């Protein structure tokens, strides 16, 4: 078992944002969690990486993770590519990648691999990251996330604010990363495109997992179709 989450609970003041979230991810999975705005997707991701101090148990490779402290999660092999990309706009593209490898000794290899994966980043390596387009920034955020060669990559809404064609290419990249052996947990509002690449999927509603299945099962479920995939329009 790669990741096992048990009864995760989180409150923002009085707002109960995560209500006993439990799920499991096997090594090599590409798991998608879909949910609408405010369902608790980012809260879940930030709790998994330790930015938020949620109660409940998280096991990574059968070892219980201590609460809090993101840097210990990164050392154990989990990396989060956060919502809104959050690249460092004041640093150059290369410096952003080097920051991604803050905890490792030899960072050249990772930079080369990121350039191989995203040739546009190589072209722009000396440019300030803030001057990149949204799609390029997302590539940079993913490349930065891969710098430590993680066992598991968490991606929080990588399609946010990107043009449909770019979203397709981001999804293909995520699939490729997964095929290279990295376990992926992807949280998305863009359910259709995310489910299409997933082998496992969960639906998060008001802080609770209400449905699990394979990506295909959820894609073909009429209820899910109506709620998340714009299926209701067919009735018009």
């Amino acid at each position, binding site marked *: 078992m790669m990741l096992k989450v048990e009864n995760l609970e989180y409150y923002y003041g009085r707002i109960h944002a995560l209500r006993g979230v439990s799920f499991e991810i096997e090594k090599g999975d590409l798991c998608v969690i879909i949910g609408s705005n405010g369902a608790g997707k980012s809260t879940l991701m930030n709790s998994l990486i330790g*930015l938020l101090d949620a109660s409940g148990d998280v096991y990574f490779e059968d070892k219980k993770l201590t609460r809090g402290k*993101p840097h210990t999660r990164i*050392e154990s092999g989990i990396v989060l590519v956060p919502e809104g990309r959050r690249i*460092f706009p004041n640093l150059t593209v290369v410096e952003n990648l080097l920051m991604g490898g803050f905890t490792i000794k030899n960072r050249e290899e990772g930079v080369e691999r990121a350039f191989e994966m995203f040739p546009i980043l190589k072209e722009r390596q000396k440019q300030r990251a803030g001057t990149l387009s949204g799609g390029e920034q997302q590539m940079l955020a993913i490349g930065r996330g891969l710098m430590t060669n993680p066992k598991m990559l968490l991606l929080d809404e990588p399609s946010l604010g990107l043009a449909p064609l770019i979203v397709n290419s981001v999804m293909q990249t995520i699939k490729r990363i997964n095929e290279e052996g990295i376990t992926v947990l992807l949280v998305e509002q863009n359910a259709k495109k995310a489910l299409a690449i997933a082998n496992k999927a969960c639906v998060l509603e008001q802080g609770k997992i209400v449905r699990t299945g394979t990506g295909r099962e959820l894609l073909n479920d009429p209820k899910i179709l109506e709620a998340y995939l714009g299926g209701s329009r067919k009735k018009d």
Partner: protein
Amino acid sequence: MVLFFQQIINALAIGGIYALMSVGYALIYSLLRFTNFAHSVAVTFGSYAIYVALTHITSNFYLGLIFGVLVGAVIALIIELTAYKPLLIKNSARSSLTIIGLGISTIGTNMIILIFSSRFKVIPTDFGGKSIQLLGAYISVLDIIIIAICLVMLLGVFLFINKTRTGLAIRAASHDLDSTALMGVDVQKFLSIIFILAGAMAGIAGVMLATKYQAYPSLATTMTNKSFISSVVGGLGSLGGAVAGSFILSTGEVMISGYVSSELRDLFSYGLLILVLLVRPYGLMGKRFDDKA
């Protein structure tokens, strides 16, 4: 012309000391978005550390300087760990941190009065009143030492920020501290390093100030006010701005003291602060932040 040259040297020495302190303000502001008003305590303790070192421990000024650096760094670390860290972990409002800092600054000054009384303390050095003649002007040896040490320190900080891994993390964190945590930076340890760095520079500044003006309890608060003005003029949170602001302020002050009247010096400093806040509140090189505290 001789007076002008002499004043320029004086401005460089004072500006260098301001810069050591204002870089500390800028570093902490750029990461945590609050002004560390307890910064003056590290300067105060640095200024008394050199006094204690040279009267009780050693006669070597440079050993005393190192002692002052250590004292400044340790004081800053203690303040961070006991006062700021608990509030930061609770995610308190930045204004609470600012107020706590002001309180600590008052406590620090009064502790010094309790221990050393409020009398002026002369720092015994070999080069006390010595000066050398250069281009017709008399330049004090102390000013030359101050300028040299300040330049070396500022260059060291510049290299540290631009060439090291921790420096890169500082630049990244100045934009987004939470994201650096996602990169694997242990934020609490990282912040302690920043406070140690700022405190060490404050310690050096304290040593220089005491040696130049004698040590007295309100010395550091007066001088850190000036360096705070420098960092506002340069743009809060900008290291380059803090250094530039320091030399602009010291040059203005020294020239006004020399050519107009030394009574107008502080009027100039605080007038400049008001002018900058009215005309260009984010300073010469500052970024615009939503919440300044």
